[in-house]
């Protein structure tokens, strides 16, 4: 085997393969989904930007009280408002696409805030 002939061929081929492989790099798309809570007294605003339709469930979430008080579809970008009345404690927002998954599957994205509106 003549290394003087083989080495340049292998080197050129491998180098070109490496250069070609980087052309498949896309770089990251920095658009991410998000939701956040803005609280003004007893008014809670859920700001959202989601890339697919999702559902928001609003829960009054205390030890002795756990009840869903609102369920709403959201898509795109916008604000969802919920006014709290006669309640003091934690309020929870579950954001999920389709059904809420169980077991080891991904649970909904959850946010929560504390209010004192009694």
């Amino acid at each position, binding site marked *: *085997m003549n290394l003087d002939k083989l080495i340049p061929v292998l*080197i050129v081929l491998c180098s070109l393969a490496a250069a070609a492989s980087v052309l498949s790099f896309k*770089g990251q798309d920095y658009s*991410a*989904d*998000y939701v956040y809570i803005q609280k003004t007294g007893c008014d809670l605003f859920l700001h959202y930007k989601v890339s697919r339709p999702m559902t928001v469930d609003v829960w009054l979430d205390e030890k002795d009280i756990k009840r869903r008080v609102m369920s709403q579809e959201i898509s795109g970008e916008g604000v969802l408002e919920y006014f709290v009345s006669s309640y003091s404690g934690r309020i929870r927002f579950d954001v999920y696409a389709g059904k809420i998954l169980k077991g080891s599957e991904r649970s909904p994205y959850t946010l*929560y805030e504390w209010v004192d509106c009694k």
Partner: protein
Amino acid sequence: MNRKILVLCVLVILLSGLAVRLVPASREKYPIGYDNFFHARMAELYSNGVPRTIPWPEERANLYPPSYHLLLAGASVFFGGDALQASRFLLPALSMLLPLTLLYVLAKIKGWREALVGFFLMTFNPFLITAGYNSPEVVGLALSLAAFYFLYKDRILLAGLAQAACFSFSFMAGVYSSVMLLLLLRGKRLKDAALFLAPSAVFLLAWYGSRYDLLYQSTNFFGSKYVFMSLRDWLFLYSPFILGAVIPVLFCSSYRSRFDRFWAVWSVFFLVAYFSFLVTPVLHPWRMPLYLSVGFVMLVSSALRGAKGQALKVLFIVSFTAACIVTVNTVAHSSLTPPDDALIQWISGQSGQRVMSEYSLCGHLLTLAPQKSCNLDLYFESIPDKQKWDDYERMFWEYSPELVRKNINEYSPDYIVYGSRDWGREILEDSVNVSKVFVSWKCDPLCGQEAAVYVPR
């Protein structure tokens, strides 16, 4: 080897090597490698003169070697003064200096065939490519290789000057120097050793001596536990391969000349240094495979001169390179994920100032939302408040409700931030009364972990 073929090969490797480094960098919004956020901020300081101190997160001595930050400050002129954007490209391009130096050294000492193989192996070495996205050590290593060449040619003063230049880029120059010094002392060449060290001594005195009054501010030991957690799987994959199998074989087959002896000693030295991370992390174990790779490339190039087992050697080179190319394709992405980016943008518009987060996210935050304070800096070699740093880091790594409560009581953060790669938020939720006010995620196509912001009540 035919001259035209040789030039063609060098050009193909050079251009492909630059493409492998610069194409991924050009397609990211931020630099690849979070250290660049620190380097960019340093370059901004240097544009107003050499700073004696680093102002964030708390003022401390500027002990970092100055040359890369000066270069970056200069390069940022071409990017409208934006050092962060300049850092996307400068160091990846400079990382080609090491293969080019190696090409020259091997061509002068061994021959063009060996030089070409060495140039090729080093250009596509995944450790060099990844280090080239955030560590000025890659420039220092090229200078150290030049120092080795001058030493080999008995041009001691030039070797010393190259090594002093290496010190101006990297702390690790001290480690490279010790191998060269070892060989000089072994040959009882005391005068040469003194001449070799003199330029470095002058630089070190000028740079660190002028700051001696500030040295006490820094606590540089941060525990081997951190390093264990930082080592990546791919590093574990390659290192035993290089260390455990290849180098001893090359060591035995190539132990013929002064050249081979040097790189064999170099390899053994770094092999020992690599395992020192079990005791202390001061020798940067996550860069050890890079230093070992230099020795490895030198030895494998040298081994090509032997007539035995040529097919095996070629097969080995090809398979090693294929593995490198696969690795390169899996690691070159910005360390800032889209959910973390959304989180930083959101938090920069909030009124609270004090943010508690893991060090990497904190480093990004300090650059992209500089009006906030974050008590961990990504430049973790020099930590202004070791206790606080340790408390914070453990909070993101240990499942300890007591530690979470202690941190929040002692440091009173406005926000506690978990990036999309952090864990431990369940402990926070279960231990302390917090509101969870922001969540961001990305599904592409699978949904990654959320980035979240908590506010203590």
